[in-house]
């Protein structure tokens, strides 16, 4: 790429670059996509010039940064824009974003990569290629300025989108060189050097979100708000008993109700009413006589499920184990044995925006408006269910009113909406679930129990630990390929020995951690933090019981087991320090502590609580420490940590989805209670990034919220809490 030094370097044709880049396996999207730079794309970016697939520059120096991942409140949009803008060296005040659609990604051979937004991967999985996109665009813009001035590019600098040539006091904005830059070949990927985070000026800073304004005045259009000409609305009811079937319904009874257009059978288990407005559709659906074939699951209840799972605590067969030394022998020979059995319930996601999907099917085109964490999965569901080829399908992007894992791969509501829309060719139909339907037909956080046994020697050292988990498998329900030879490693999340993602932070000489799969008839799926939630409670509440049985300080006992895990330990220490561990508290207040790992990041927390003589719990203050490797926007990380406290504490205090007669019974917020502002503790976030890895942010900290609080309750009452939620437990 020598020629590039003085410009006019168009020796490598775009097509050739694409082929060579793909052949080298570099997969650098900006090169691979060049052949697809159509006029249509340029138009969509307004009057701007596309420098590469991530960056469009407008004549007024505005930089449009393209975003592939979904935004559901977690701040990924702003964080990704910061990373690109950092490498682009543009003016942050002139940054705007453009959301990509999956149809466009597909047409460009997935140039923008994976669009799935789950597992706290939005930033950590795409940071490298989006930063490279920003850096490559900067190099091209600088080269274009150097060419214009006929000076070596090495003499050219840039600050906030203004390119300067110091020796001749010349300067020019990105907007004025964009057209020339776009004609240059992209730089050789090997010549792209990403900045050291120490030099970051935009990334790493607590900048404000880019997407706040429309959330303050009602102007933001979520998918549920979509209005299309001639649009009809649908309300739906799926068999209340999971696995049940729709037997019959009496359409005549509601046919003459206001606005009603049609009653539609949706697959074999659901019924929908389509009307002019949603309120008409829902009113008619509520009045529609429906007979269900409830099937064999109607005999299931919380009690039968609990018994079924309990049996897994002592079963012979297991579905995954992590073994070191001989835990059972150590326990048999222990000076002191500690034992406890724990349980956690099913939980729904309860996103504030209920599931909805608007579908318009024409003879040769399918369109979808939907809140989704996986735009490409939505596109695939639209195509499969409609029978219209993928390249004739498109999903219109809408930021989500919450996601929390509910709206990833399953796409159940999209499929329903397509079935309904098939009855109205050419007419858009919006399906909205009622809150009751949303609570009845979630993919719930899996139910589980845990039996834990520990061995202490005469000096109170932990010499052996046996943890047996029994519960439902997410993989078995949603991803059977994830269960390999009957083993399901995912359910042991947080106990893994391997570093980097969800590693256990303790070294115990003799340790046996096992999982027994007990699948119920209730659909399960990922729920913010996924299995680190339950496993964090089990590990850290049990560690507290062990420490107390050993007569040792909760923090010191943990520290002694964490010498081989310096990153876990550093985060625990950070939480302890900021949380004033060991220092006096106001009368009646007690502290708890916990640490655990998930989603590539290290988390720890302290909680300060009081329990009134009547048994009323108040959480006063929590300190959460997080090492997520790179901190892209500290203020948004703090927002995610604060949010994880609310989501985690709400589950701890109230969360439960009981099953009766095979169906869910907590169908709205009157029974599925959600924590409110009065119960929100003061949250302090300590970010201790070490900049030697990229971890997640949205999910990691939730796993320490419940155990820190429960351990503080233990300190307050002298009694361990072994089942959730707390509303069902008498604390004193």
């Amino acid at each position, binding site marked *: 790429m020598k020629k590039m030094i003085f410009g006019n370097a168009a020796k490598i044709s775009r097509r050739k670059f694409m082929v060579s880049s793909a052949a080298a396996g570099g997969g650098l999207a900006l090169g691979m996509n060049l052949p697809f730079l159509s006029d249509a794309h340029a138009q969509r970016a307004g009057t701007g010039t596309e420098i590469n697939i991530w960056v469009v520059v407008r004549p007024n120096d505005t930089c449009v940064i393209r975003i592939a991942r979904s935004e559901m409140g977690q701040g990924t949009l702003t964080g990704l824009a910061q990373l690109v803008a950092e490498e682009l060296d543009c003016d942050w005040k002139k940054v705007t974003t453009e959301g990509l659609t999956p149809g466009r990604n597909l047409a460009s051979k997935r140039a923008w990569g994976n669009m799935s937004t789950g597992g706290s991967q939005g930033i950590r999985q795409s940071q490298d290629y989006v930063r490279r996109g920003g850096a490559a665009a900067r190099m091209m813009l600088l080269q274009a300025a150097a060419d214009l001035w006929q000076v070596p590019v090495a003499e050219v600098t840039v600050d906030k989108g203004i390119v300067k040539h110091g020796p001749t006091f010349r300067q020019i904005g990105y907007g004025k060189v964009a057209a020339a830059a776009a004609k240059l070949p992209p730089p050789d990927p090997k010549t792209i050097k990403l900045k050291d985070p120490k030099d970051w000026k935009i990334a790493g800073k607590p900048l404000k979100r880019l997407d706040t304004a429309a959330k303050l005045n009602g102007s933001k259009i979520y998918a549920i708000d979509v209005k299309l000409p001639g649009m009809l609305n649908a309300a739906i009811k799926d068999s209340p008993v999971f696995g049940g079937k729709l037997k019959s319904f009496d359409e005549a009874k509601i046919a003459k109700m206001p606005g009603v257009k049609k009653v539609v059978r949706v697959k074999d288990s659901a019924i929908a009413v389509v009307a002019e407005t949603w*309120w008409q559709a829902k009113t008619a659906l509520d009045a529609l006589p429906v007979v269900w074939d409830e099937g064999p699951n109607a005999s299931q209840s919380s009690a039968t499920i609990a018994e079924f799972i309990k049996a897994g605590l002592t079963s012979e067969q297991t579905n995954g184990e992590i073994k070191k030394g001989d835990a059972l022998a150590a326990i048999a020979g222990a000076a002191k044995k500690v034992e406890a059995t724990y349980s956690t319930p099913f939980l729904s996601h309860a996103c504030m925006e209920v599931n909805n999907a608007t579908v318009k099917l024409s003879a040769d085109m399918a369109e979808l408006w939907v809140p989704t964490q996986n735009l490409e999965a939505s596109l695939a569901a639209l195509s499969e269910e409609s029978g219209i080829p993928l390249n004739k399908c498109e999903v219109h992007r809408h930021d989500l009113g919450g996601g929390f894992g509910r709206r990833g791969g399953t796409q159940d509501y999209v499929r329903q909406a397509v079935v309904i829309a098939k009855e109205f060719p050419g007419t858009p139909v919006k399906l909205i679930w009622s809150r009751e339907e949303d609570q009845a037909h979630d993919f719930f956080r899996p139910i589980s129990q845990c039996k834990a046994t520990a061995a202490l020697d005469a000096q109170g050292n932990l010499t052996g630990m046996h943890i047996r988990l029994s519960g439902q498998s997410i993989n078995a329900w949603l991803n059977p390929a994830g269960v390999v030879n009957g083993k399901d490693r995912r359910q042991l999340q947080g106990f893994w020995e391997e570093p980097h993602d969800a590693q256990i932070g303790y070294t115990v000489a003799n340790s046996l951690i096992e999982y027994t799969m007990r699948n119920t008839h209730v659909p399960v799926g990922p729920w913010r933090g996924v299995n680190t939630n339950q496993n964090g409670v089990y590990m850290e509440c049990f560690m507290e019981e062990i420490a107390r049985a050993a007569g040792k300080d909760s923090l010191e006992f943990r520290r002694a087991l964490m010498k081989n895990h310096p990153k876990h330990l550093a985060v625990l220490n950070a939480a302890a320090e900021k949380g004033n561990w060991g220092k006096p508290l106001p009368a009646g207040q007690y502290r708890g502590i916990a640490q655990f790992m998930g989603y590539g990041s290290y988390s720890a927390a302290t909680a300060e609580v009081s329990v009134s003589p009547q048994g009323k719990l108040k959480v006063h203050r929590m300190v959460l420490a997080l090492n997520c490797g790179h901190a892209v926007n500290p*203020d948004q990380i703090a927002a995610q940590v604060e949010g994880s406290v609310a989501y985690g504490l709400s589950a701890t205090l109230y969360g439960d989805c009981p099953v009766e007669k095979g169906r869910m019974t907590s169908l709205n917020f009157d029974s599925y209670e959600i924590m*409110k502002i009065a119960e929100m503790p003061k949250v302090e976030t300590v970010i201790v990034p070490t900049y030697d890895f990229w971890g997640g942010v949205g999910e990691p900290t939730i796993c320490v919220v419940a155990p820190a609080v429960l351990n503080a309750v233990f300190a307050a009452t002298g009694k361990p809490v072994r089942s959730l939620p707390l509303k069902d437990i008498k604390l004193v």
Partner: protein
Amino acid sequence: MAKLNINGRVRDANVPNDTPLLWFIREQVGLTGTKYGCGVAQCGACSVHINGEVQRSCSIRVGDIKATDKIVTIEGLSATTSHPVQQAWAALDVPQCGYCQSGQIMAAAALLAKTKKPTDSDIDQAMTNICRCGTYQRIRAAVHLAAEGRSALNRASKARS
């Protein structure tokens, strides 16, 4: 036929009397800033002002509203997103997903209209809206900030721009 005054404009409510105000606002008037969250007056996403009082529009029938009642939705709170509550929300980057925030803002605005300097306890009593993203800590701080007045708002806006 009922007549409804929404954001200063009187409209005919050509719907059955038992239609919830929320769905009239969303589907007939076409103002979608007021959100459906639960339909049973639990979550507050549908909060609007009726004669200055914050009310949950999902549980109020159109037929129970008088033509003289003044209904204000989030779209009518200010012409230029300039209400102190909106400015405080912006200054502290309160929203995450944003879905519940119309209701939160309407609840906060109604609180401040009555209680110029609310205490934490006042906020606990008045702000009973659900937020699943968990923005409660910032909501509390933003209510206090809005109560402090323009100069504090301006300082806070500049501090993090």
